[in-house]
Structure formats: C-alpha cells, structure tokens
C-alpha cells in the first residue's frame, strides 16, 4: 500500500534526524488530443505515479522526487536529502518554522460523473475532429483551426510527520480552440479555453457550436484590426483581461513566500488602502467545479476563500505553513505543487475582482477617447518593482462613448498600485476563465476573472502615435 510507504518514509526521515517530513504521492492520468486542420497533431496519454518528499532538518528544507517506489532507492535519496538539508541549515541563521495547524486525516475525493479514464480515446479524437471541421466550415477565411482537448484525473496523498493524512482526487477537463484567419495578406488570430474541475459531463454541457463560432468570428474580426494608439488613455478591460490583470499584477504580489522573500511591493502594506474603494479581490479555491478548485492544499491544509482586498484595503496574503509562521498570519491553504516532481509553493487558485453595479454600456458611454481590451495571451509581473505587462487578444477603439473599430495586438503596462487606484467603474457582468499559472518552473491550473473595469490614464502600448 502506498500509504504504508509514505508512513515508512516519514518514520525513517525522523529517525535520520529530520524535524519534519512531508511525503506526497501522486497518481496522475491525463490525455491530450490536439487536432490541427483535421489532422491529428498529437495524442499523448500520461499515466504516472511517483512520490515527492520534503524534509526539514537543522531548520532548512530539502526536496526530492522519485518515480520509483522501491524502498532501497528511496532510502538512499532520503538520506542524501537530509544530509543536504543539514548542511543548508548550517549556513542558515533564519530557521524555517511551520505554523501549527491541527492535523486531519481525510479523504476529499471529487469523483467525476464521466471520468476521463472511462471515456474512449476514439471519442476524444472524434470530438476534436468534429469541432475542427466545423470551425473551418464557418468561414472560408479560416486557414487554421486547432482544437486541443486535455483531461486530468489527479489523485494525491499527503502524509506528514505531524499527523496529516489527506487524500484528494480532482478531475479537470479543458477544451481550447484557436483560429487563424487570412485575407489579402493580413492575419488575424484568436484563442480561447473553457475548462472546469469536472469530467466529460462538463464537455457534454458546453455549447460547442457557440464556442466555435465565437473563436472564428473573433479571428476574422482581427483581420481588419488597425495598429493601436500608444500613450496614456482611459481603458476598459473585459472580465477575461480583468482576471489576468488581477492575477498577474496583484495576485502574485500577495503570495506569502514572495512577501517573505522581500520580493513584494505589498510586503508592509497589510491593512493599508492600496486601491480604489471599488476594488475587492478574492482568491477562492472553494468555488464549486471551478478550474482552480481544491479542497485541501498540498501540505494537507484545508483551503480557504481569502479576501485579499476589501474595498481598496489590503486584507491578507496567500500562505503556506512556512510563510504563515514567519509573517504571523493564518495558514489559509495556499501551498500547491505542479506534480510529485515539485515541492509545494504558495499559489493562487481562482483569483477575481468582485462585481460592481455598473452596466457595461454605461461605462463605455462616458469614454470620450479610449480603448476596450478583451481576452489575453497572458502577462508577466515584477512583484518587487510592482510593474506588470499583459497583452490583449482583442482591442477596440472607443470614441465619443461608442465602440468604433478593432485594434491590433495591444498591451497594457503600469505600476500595479497606481492602476488599482485609478479604477473608476466596475460592472455587474462577471465571469471566470481557466488558465495555467507559471511560477518557479511549476505550472498549476488557476482561474482568473472579474467584471469589466474602467481605468483612467493608463499606458497602452500600440505601434501608432
């Protein structure tokens, strides 16, 4: 039994002089089917198990992972790791401490109705083919339609020397469509993903026709996009982009380990007003069936809904046990590992700005000259300087209160805190979208979203003056 192995690792680790041992096991099943212009580009089936172990000795951590579950091999590398931790500890004045959390022994298994394992590969292939074909039929200007279907069934056990034994199972299914349109020497492209922590019952409920149409239409619209203006403007971000903004520009600076490392602009600002009163921000792993859902984190701590900003005031950080102890905060279950090969680090789950009471039309009608930015291919942030960049997939010019024409590849950039204070309208419309968040070489599923935001005087990077 795997549990016995984990307990044996923990026991042996303590025997070898570790102060704390955390042994995690993962059994991952995942398939990915990618179809491009009705040709199968790849089919990859992953079925993999392994263990990842963190040891704390002499006040310092060491981590190792192993795909083999043979005790002899694990024992060797466990010994080596404890030795490394001890050496690291010798150089370390500031010893690691872990916040006390009452240990639990639980099973939190989110069983899908239609498990990715039970759905035939042929079905997955045919689904991708069908959507791909439909996308190309919808408009002759589509020169490439790519459909990517990915599913996961992720079973994990966390066993620690202070009594945690937490078993979790999370299914995830995500469908991404992308289209490239070509006409008269011009290219337009668009990509969008829809996903949830569900099995194929999620795909069954998706309106695939509408999804395909949206992606195709947007790629075609971008054919006639003109270079965007550059400089400072009033900007309206759609829920997708609002989500990427709050995740990139703000969420990362709220990660307890980054705060602890002195790398966050927010480090001394708890309880302070850091943005407009219209801005309230949550990080919520408990949202039912959401893409960034988890009930227990990878340290075994119960995941909580966190209010990061309440009406402009910074309320909390996302923590793991180490950051919680050092920052004297409550452990709120924010430690996540990409897989057994990586140690858990502080991560976001579903991060969003709470909706307000404006209608989108009202927000636009007041803008004399500005830009509406929608969707995103992602962004990047420097949490220490508090600067960010993120890119819009679609953009439109707003003139005299009306949306007039599409604009090409526009990005936004700014100082996070300056931007948060410049939000002057927040819409009722609200949605959350799936994404993958990268940090420290690890990618984890993260939901991002919010309402439409109107921000005045922000830097837009276009190619025209």
């Amino acid at each position: 039994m795997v549990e016995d192995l984990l307990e044996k690792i923990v026991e042996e680790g303590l025997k070898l002089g570790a102060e704390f041992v955390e042994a995690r096991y993962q059994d991952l099943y995942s398939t990915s089917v990618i179809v491009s212009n009705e040709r199968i580009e790849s089919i990859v089936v992953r079925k993999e198990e392994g263990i990842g172990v963190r040891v704390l000795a002499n006040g310092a951590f060491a981590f190792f992972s192993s795909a083999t579950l043979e005790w002899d091999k694990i024992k060797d590398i466990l010994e080596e790791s404890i030795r490394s931790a001890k050496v690291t500890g010798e150089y370390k004045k500031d010893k690691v401490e872990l916040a006390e959390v009452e240990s639990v022994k639980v099973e939190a298994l989110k069983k899908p109705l239609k498990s990715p394992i039970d759905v035939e590969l042929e079905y997955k292939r045919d689904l991708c083919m069908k959507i791909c074909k439909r996308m190309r039929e919808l408009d002759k200007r589509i020169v490439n339609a790519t459909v990517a279907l990915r599913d996961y069934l992720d079973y994990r056990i966390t066993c620690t020397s202070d009594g945690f034994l937490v078993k979790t199972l999370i299914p995830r299914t995500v469908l991404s469509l992308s289209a490239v349109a070509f006409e008269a020497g011009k290219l337009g492209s668009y990509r969008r993903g829809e996903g949830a922590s569900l099995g194929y019952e999620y795909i069954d409920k998706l309106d695939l026709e509408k999804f395909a149409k949206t992606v195709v239409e947007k790629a075609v619209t971008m054919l006639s996009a003109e270079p965007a203006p550059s400089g400072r403007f009033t900007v309206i971000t759609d829920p997708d982009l609002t989500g990427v903004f709050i995740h990139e520009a703000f969420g990362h600076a709220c990660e307890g380990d980054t705060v602890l490392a002195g790398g966050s602009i927010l480090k001394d600002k708890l309880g302070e007003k850091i943005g407009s009163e219209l801005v309230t921000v949550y990080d919520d792993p408990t949202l039912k069936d959401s893409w960034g859902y988890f009930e227990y984190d990878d340290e075994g701590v119960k995941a909580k809904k966190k209010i990061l900003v309440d009406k402009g005031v910074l309320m909390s950080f996302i923590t793991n046990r180490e950051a919680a102890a050092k920052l004297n905060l409550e452990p709120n279950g924010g430690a996540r590992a990409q897989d057994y090969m990586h140690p858990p680090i502080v991560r976001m789950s579903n991060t969003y700005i709470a909706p307000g009471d404006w209608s989108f039309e009202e927000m636009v009608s007041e803008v004399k000259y500005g830009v509406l930015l929608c969707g995103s291919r992602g962004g990047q942030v420097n949490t220490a300087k508090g600067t960010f960049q993120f890119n819009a997939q679609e953009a439109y010019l707003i003139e005299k209160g009306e949306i007039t024409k599409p604009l090409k590849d526009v990005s936004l950039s700014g100082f996070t805190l300056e931007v948060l204070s410049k939000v002057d309208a927040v819409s009722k419309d609200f949605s959350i979208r799936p994404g993958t968040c990268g940090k420290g070489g690890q990618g984890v599923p993260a939901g991002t979203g919010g309402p439409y935001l109107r921000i005045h005087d922000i830097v837009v990077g276009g190619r025209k003056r």
Partner: protein
Amino acid sequence: MFMLDLLNKIVKIAEKKGASQVEVFAASSTRKSANIEKNEPKYSVLSREQGVNIRVIYGGGIGSAYTLRLDEKSIEKTIEKAISIAKVRGKDPYFKSFASPQKYPEVEGLFSKNTAEVTVDDMLKDLIEVRDMYIKYDPRLSSLDFYSSVSVRETYIVNSLGVEAYGRSTSAYFAAEAICEEKGIMFSSYDYQVERDYKKINMSKVAKNAVEFALRQARGVKAETEKLPVVLDPLAIGSLFFILFYAISANNVQEKRSFLAGKIGEKVFDEKLTIIDDPLLPEGNASRKFDGEGVASRKLALIENGVLKTYLYNLYTAQREGRESTGHASRGLRGEPGISPSNIIVQLAEEKKLEELLAEVTKGIYVRTVIGAHTANTVTGDFSVALGEAYLIEKSELGPAVKQAMVSGNFAEVFSNIIAASKEKVKKGSLLTGHLLVELMISG
C-alpha cells in the same frame, strides 16, 4: 551496455506485436539545485529520472507512449499503449519512417566532469561565498537571491532501422537577482549564465551585474511616447527571438500559423543580418551530436543576408514536404517530438564596438530586459511588451533608468531595419549575439 540491450529488446518485442517500425528514446538524468533567498540559503533539491518513450508505426499510423519503470511488465504495457494510440490515430497522411542509420559528428565539451562531480555542499559553499562578496556592497541592497543547478543527462535513441545513438551531457546554471530599496521604492535586476562546465560559471560577475544594474535604477525618469533608436541587450534579444523560433518552426509554417510561411528565398529581414543555427559549437549550451530522433546535427544558415533560407524540421514535418529533416527534433520523455533550434548565432555584415554603437545614439534607450515577450502574437509577429529594465543613453553611456514604459513593434519590421550591431558577442543560454540598434515605438 545494459541500456542499449534493453532498447534493442524493446524494438524486437514491438516488432513481434506487429509494429512495422519502432523507435525507442531513453533518457536518464540527475539534477541538483541549491538557492539563496533574501540572503539566506533556502532549499536544496535532488531529482533523478529515467524512462523510455516508445514510438511505433502500426498500420500506417504513429503512436507513442512512455514509462518511467523499466521492468518487463511496464515495458510490455507501454508498447501496447503505443500501438493502441497508433490505431486510434489511424493511417497518417505524411509520416513514413523513423531515421536511417547515419554518422554522427563529434562535438567537443558536451560533458564536464566538474559538473558531474559537484555536490550540493560545494554548490552551497560557492553561493555563500558570492553572497558574502556582495551583501555589503551598498546599503540600499536589501536582498540577494541566487539559484544554482547542475544536471547530468544521458540520452539513447535506438530504432528498428538500425539507429543506435548515445550521448551524455552536463549543464550548469546560475542566476542572481538583486533587490534594492531606497525611500520605500524597490528596484531589482538579474543576470544568469549557463555553461556545460560548472567551473566556467563566473558567479561573481553574474552577481555583480545583478547588483550594479539594480543600483543603476535608483535614478529614474519617465519616458515620452515616441519612436526612438533602441539598443537591444542580448537578454532582450533572447526574449524577442522567441517569436522567430516559433515562426521558423516548420510545423507552424505548415499549419499556417507563421508570418514566415511561403517566404523561403525571400528577403524577410535586414540584408545585413545573418542567423546561423550551430549545433556543433564546442561547449555550446544547445550543442548536440544528434537530435531527438537520431538525426545527425549540422550547421545551418537560417537567415543569410536577410533572406530566409530554411525552416526548422523534425522527421514528421520534413516528410510532410518530402524532404530531409534538418535535425531539429526536440524530445522529452513524456510527449511527442517537437521542434527547437540549437545554438543561435547572430551576425551582422558590419559590426562595430559597443561604445561606438552607443555613441551613435544622441537620443535613445538601452533596453536590457523586456517583460511579457511570451505574450507576443507569434502568428503575426506583433509584440507589445513592457520595458523590464531600460536606460536613457547619454553621451555613449547608460544614463538614468526609464521608469515604466512599453515598447511595441512587429518582429519582421523591426529586424528589417537594423541600424547597427556590436562586435562583442555575448553568450546568453544558447544565443550568441552582440547588441543591436533598431528603431522602436516607445509608449510612456
């Protein structure tokens, strides 16, 4: 050799099960890392991995599967899985064959004993030594973060056509970030170095760069919105070249996702510009004797005097066009082969000293790093990124930092007008380039 025997056995078993061709890719690697965070040692990580990825052609279709367990039962199951995936994929319209046996070139310096033998203890000692050199460098310096890692990798490719390739290599990486604080304002910078040989990493120099560039930002100015001459640092060039690598990959060209599609033989960039892909470069970080499918490596001009000479091919994309692979298959244990460049060397017809280059700019910006290059539109080549670290150029020297601005352009347009380039080549990862002077739209 145990591994080669095992791989040949896998080939035999898969053939017996009805595969018309079989290819086995095996890799084993060990990695060690240590770091310093906020001036203190933080973590050490050990990882070892070994596995095989088996590809078959079965009924005209390709299928692949992998396992990290090398026992008989796991291997048997993996072969069956590869065959079942080939069946689901069905007859492929283009793919006919894995690589034929070929002679591999010798490449110097892929493996370093220094890297293979270094211990976590040694790595930590080195990190502490560098930390102690700089921790008191300036009172504004609040945090030093270092990351050091070494890896040793062995790769095998065996196929039913008779390919038997084996290679081993090492890699050492060191990165330094410095965070400074003055009057509540934080500014930071970083630098890194990758080498085959751990001892060739100049940690002190990398750390010094991070610290000095961070301190340089204490004095900052706002930028105006205007088109300006911009000197691109090799770090920034590396980030922007991500767009080129995507566009020049044959798969994206064939799937019409590239602005370089249909442009072979055409002038796509400035006629002074030549870009070489050189997998044979001694000690090159992306050097290799053969690619991920066992195709021999060779030096290739991608861009010659501004003209697009070739795309990067692996076996699949090459056979799709009825041509030879250029040897650019990238390979991991878990997925199917992709495409990636090897060492990229950027050459300009006229190159001058960096100081002469800077002297040419009366009003302009030096861009050391950009933020968000991965969000560029790889299909069209349009990018709009934030300046991570940039400085005004004043009297051929770097002046105050540009506080916060964006820079945008289209990859093909920007690199079609290279005003000048510097002679001194810098190795950043697998990119070897000097500084480039171009014109870009700055939004402040």
